[in-house]
């Protein structure tokens, strides 16, 4: 489903010199999987996630999603490919002047859906995330957990094959965190959407992921297998993250 081959991303430091955020990394994520990217701050997990939909363009290496090499696409083709890759953000990134329903409708408007199809799909997505009664509210009238549900509904609306979630629960309290994780798991189970989730908490991995990649200094140091909510860890770094959780 998602194949990152030898992707490398470096950023120019403001003070000069270069910083290798992702180093020559290869990763394969299977269709229908909930895959975690875990590591401490600065490990390169968000950059790696953003390479999947080319919000960051790799300096070299290839990004293949759903059988297409994204790095070779034209700008218009990439936009169409992105409509198949939903994204959920830590800070929700909803449009403040659009209602909940209009936020969820946004990706469908972009994709050129008809008004009737949009209305029907928005209603479906509101139901899926349990916000049918909030359609006409504005984001400022919602709690953090509700905002993230809108974010998930928006990502889900165009029926993508992949949803990328960048620390989707890091701005939320523990109880809300669990409900958002359950929501993502529900979507994965019902619609077979492949979910890639970035987190710094082992709890998130144990709770919903099938597998995870542990990152450190821009490299995958261990692939973690989750069985019955238990993570088998070999590296010292993985063990230390397990202890924190």
């Amino acid at each position, binding site marked *: 489903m998602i194949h990152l081959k030898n992707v490398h991303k470096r950023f120019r430091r403001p003070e000069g010199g270069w910083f290798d955020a992702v180093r020559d990394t290869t990763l394969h994520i299977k269709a229908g999987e909930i895959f975690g990217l875990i590591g401490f701050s600065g490990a390169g997990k968000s950059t790696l996630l953003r390479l999947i939909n080319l*919000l960051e363009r790799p300096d070299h290496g290839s990004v293949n999603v759903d059988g297409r090499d994204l790095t070779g696409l034209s700008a218009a083709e990439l936009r169409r490919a992105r409509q198949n890759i939903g994204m959920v953000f830590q*800070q929700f*990134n909803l449009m*403040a002047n659009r209602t909940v329903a209009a936020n969820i409708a946004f*990706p469908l408007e972009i994709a050129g859906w008809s008004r009737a199809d949009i209305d029907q799909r928005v209603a479906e997505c509101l139901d899926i995330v349990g916000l049918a009664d909030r359609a006409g509210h504005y984001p400022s009238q919602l709690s953090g957990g509700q905002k993230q549900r809108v974010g998930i509904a928006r990502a889900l609306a165009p029926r993508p094959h992949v949803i990328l979630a960048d620390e989707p629960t890091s701005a939320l309290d523990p109880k809300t965190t669990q409900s958002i994780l359950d929501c993502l798991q529900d979507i994965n189970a019902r619609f077979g959407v492949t979910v890639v989730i970035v987190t710094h908490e082992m709890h998130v991995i144990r709770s919903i992921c099938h597998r995870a990649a542990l990152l450190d200094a821009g490299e995958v140091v261990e692939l973690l297998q989750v069985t019955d909510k238990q993570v088998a860890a070999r590296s010292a770094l993985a063990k230390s993250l397990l202890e924190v959780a």
Partner: protein
Amino acid sequence: MDEQLTLAQALANLSDLAPEIWQASVETGLMLAIGLSVAIVVGGPLGILLYLTQPGQLFANRAVNGVVGWFVNLVRSFPFIILMVSLVPLTRLLVGSTIGPIAAAVPLSFAAIPYFARLVEQTLREIPRGVIEAAEAMGASPAQIIWKVLLGEARAGLISSLTILTISFLSYSAVAGVVGGGGIGDLAIRYGYYRFQTEVMVAMVLLLVVIVQIIQFAGNHLAARLDKR
């Protein structure tokens, strides 16, 4: 000149001038309408360009941003009266005359373009970068990002900017009026100052005060209604 001008006489004088006051108001309205329209049509896109070419934005381009920014600063450096005089040849070319509200609208428009461009740029900066990035991640085209995200999210701020611009240019239009454009400011100077009819001056200033209050009130009201943040 009347040594003891009674209120009744002052009102009578003003009512004699009613057609001229109406005419002046129309001229002021015309100057503003043209200046503001040009500011929106030309200055608006210029402001969007200034914003989008900043480092880290959609069309980050140091050269374009530098040149456009420099041009905007250049025009804004001119004291309005000097800008007006130096644009006389352009005005004559465009309108065929340098007298009247249409002619005065030329330097007004010219000054309004960079003013509004800067206001638009500042307003757009308030949109969180993440919201634009989310639209990019969803596959929105640059045109969709501009129309649906930037203008949609900044609409209340843009209305406030337009309110500021309108009020500033109401007073610029008085300056333009004095050198042949007509309008409320011109009337105030001609009767109130040159003919010592103080009551005309006072009435015109009061009229401007009322207009400014109405514009500000309407602007605030509309902006508040559009702002759902």
